[in-house]
């Protein structure tokens, strides 16, 4: 067996392992969601400490599982162009597994229940077991470490093949023929991984402060600063999960439509704009914190509005160019990809509406918010993920 075939087989194996694990966890977490709804309706009795522990596990679990599954899908598909480390993928699987077990024990046994964004200083409330606070923080740190290593590894191989500016498509901005062609998937994954790495580092710093306070309870940090940090980390992670799904669409749809999907100056410019804007969209989580400087609130709404433009415009019309009069045969994979895009756009529209400060006064922390992210995850990202898994199984068969 040659090195390349060996790499290909290992990539398929690990993409399969990650996908199967993610799908199992996804189903378990959906069932936990169902338990909460049954509890709220009174159909089953769920004590508040279990309810909120389940809520925390459901939220943290879904954000983590879906990002990890999206990353694994990207990791597998980019290995057509570059060779990311299989050993790291194996190592990360162990870290992630430990993190998941830690979170399950902290929530279901220790009844750690401060919600998925663990808003400072709520985790340090002592209605749940003291040990569960440290275990949960350490578990999220393990997950964050695995995510950061994974993000840096993809950036390493992209930079090796395309160069730092090349992986962002800057060669398309010059005049004349572009020699070093960049698959659009690499561009989108590069943007996602850069945004992910920057914000995961911020998240790591914040989690270290959490850990410090757990060890030395007299410590106290600024609540507004911590809230900004947690949403920079959490919002961006969830946001780039969606981009991981969109990257799958760019890579797989052409295989079914028979039409190439290439990077050009407009596509490159749009995704570079996304990289800049995605880092500032999180401010919309703090609109109702009137103490936040007003200039930041303005900036938050502008960044939230504008971040919805470039990625969707080039992707919608790119996808249209893929399928319109292409004669594509609508089997599960392209159909699921296409409906996934629809869910993303609908969920995104609900987000833009809510990211208007004047509207947010009435929507902030209401059911509009979970409705938005359940729409774009369940009707958007999960469709894209199912597409990928079906494609993977089909290719293997």
């Amino acid at each position, binding site marked *: 067996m040659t090195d390349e075939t060996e790499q290909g087989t290992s990539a398929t194996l690990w993409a399969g392992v990650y996908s199967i694990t993610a799908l199992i966890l996804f189903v378990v977490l959906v069932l936990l969601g169902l338990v909460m709804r049954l509890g709220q309706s009174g159909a089953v009795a769920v004590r508040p400490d279990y309810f909120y522990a389940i809520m925390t596990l459901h939220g943290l679990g879904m954000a983590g599982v879906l990002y990890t599954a999206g990353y694994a899908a990207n990791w597998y598909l980019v290995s057509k162009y570059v060779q990311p480390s299989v050993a790291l993928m194996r190592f990360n699987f162990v870290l992630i597994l430990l993190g998941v077990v830690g979170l399950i024990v902290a929530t279901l046994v220790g009844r750690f229940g401060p919600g998925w964004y663990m808003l400072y200083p709520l985790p340090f409330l002592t209605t749940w077991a003291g040990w569960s606070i440290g275990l949960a923080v350490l578990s999220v740190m393990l997950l964050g470490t695995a995510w950061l290593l994974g993000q840096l590894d993809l950036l390493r191989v992209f930079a090796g093949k395309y160069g730092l500016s090349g992986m962002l498509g800057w060669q398309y901005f010059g005049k004349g023929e572009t020699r070093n062609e960049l698959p659009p998937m690499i561009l989108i994954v590069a943007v996602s991984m850069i945004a992910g790495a920057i914000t995961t580092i911020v998240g790591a710093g914040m989690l270290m402060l959490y850990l410090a306070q757990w060890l030395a309870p007299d410590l106290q940090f600024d609540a507004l600063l911590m*809230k900004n940090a947690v949403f920079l980390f959490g919002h961006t992670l969830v946001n780039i999960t969606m981009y991981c799904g969109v990257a799958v669409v760019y890579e797989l749809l052409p295989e079914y439509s028979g039409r190439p999907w290439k990077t050009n100056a407009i596509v490159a410019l749009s995704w570079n704009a996304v990289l800049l804007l995605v880092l500032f969209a999180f401010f919309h989580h703090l609109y109702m914190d*009137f103490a936040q400087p007003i200039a930041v609130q303005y900036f938050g709404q*502008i960044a939230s509005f504008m971040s919805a433009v470039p990625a969707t415009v080039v992707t919608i*019309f790119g996808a249209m160019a893929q399928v319109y*009069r292409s*004669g594509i045969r609508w089997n599960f994979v392209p159909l699921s990809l296409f409906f996934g895009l629809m869910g993303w756009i609908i969920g995104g529209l609900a987000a833009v*509406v809510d990211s208007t400060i004047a509207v947010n006064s009435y929507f*902030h922390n209401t059911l509009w918010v979970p409705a938005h992210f359940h729409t774009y995850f369940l009707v958007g990202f999960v469709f894209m993920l199912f597409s990928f898994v079906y494609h993977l199984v089909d290719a293997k068969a």
Partner: protein
Amino acid sequence: MTVWYAGLITLVGAIAIFLITIWLLYGATPAQPAESVTGRLYKVRGRYFVVLMAVLVIVLLLTLRHLPYRSMVSAEPEYIVPVSGMIWSWQIGPLEDRDGNPSSNVAGTVVLPLGKTVEFQVTAKDVNHGFGIYNEQGQLVAQTQAMPGYVNKLVHTFTVPGKYEVLCMEYCGLAHHTMISTITVE
């Protein structure tokens, strides 16, 4: 009205996006060479981009003028109400006039004047809470976060008399859902 407009825009938008998706599914056949469709599509893309940007800029200009923040509200408050959230209750009042003189509220009840501009000075003693005021129909009329170490100033003028409920709008632990208080406006 803001809520209705926002809901309507989202609903109509979602239906439009769904219909376009279905139209595209059926538009995949009959097959034609890619070059015959991309040129036209890219022209539409340019126009769509310009229209979308124009709409967003107009919406930004219109909506960024109406922000709930203290320095953006032109009405000068006539009364001040200190509010403090703690696990798992609200301490609201006593009502003060602009000069800091307490009003004649009976202890334990919060009665706010109808038609007068009130400034809620909202903070928290322990963890983050959310100060949300709901009318008798269960509609949210105003909100701000209650954060330890900060005072968020929420200015509001009640135009309808009645009993209002204050609900916690930031998850704050096991009895968060019971953190409810009332305000009377007359």
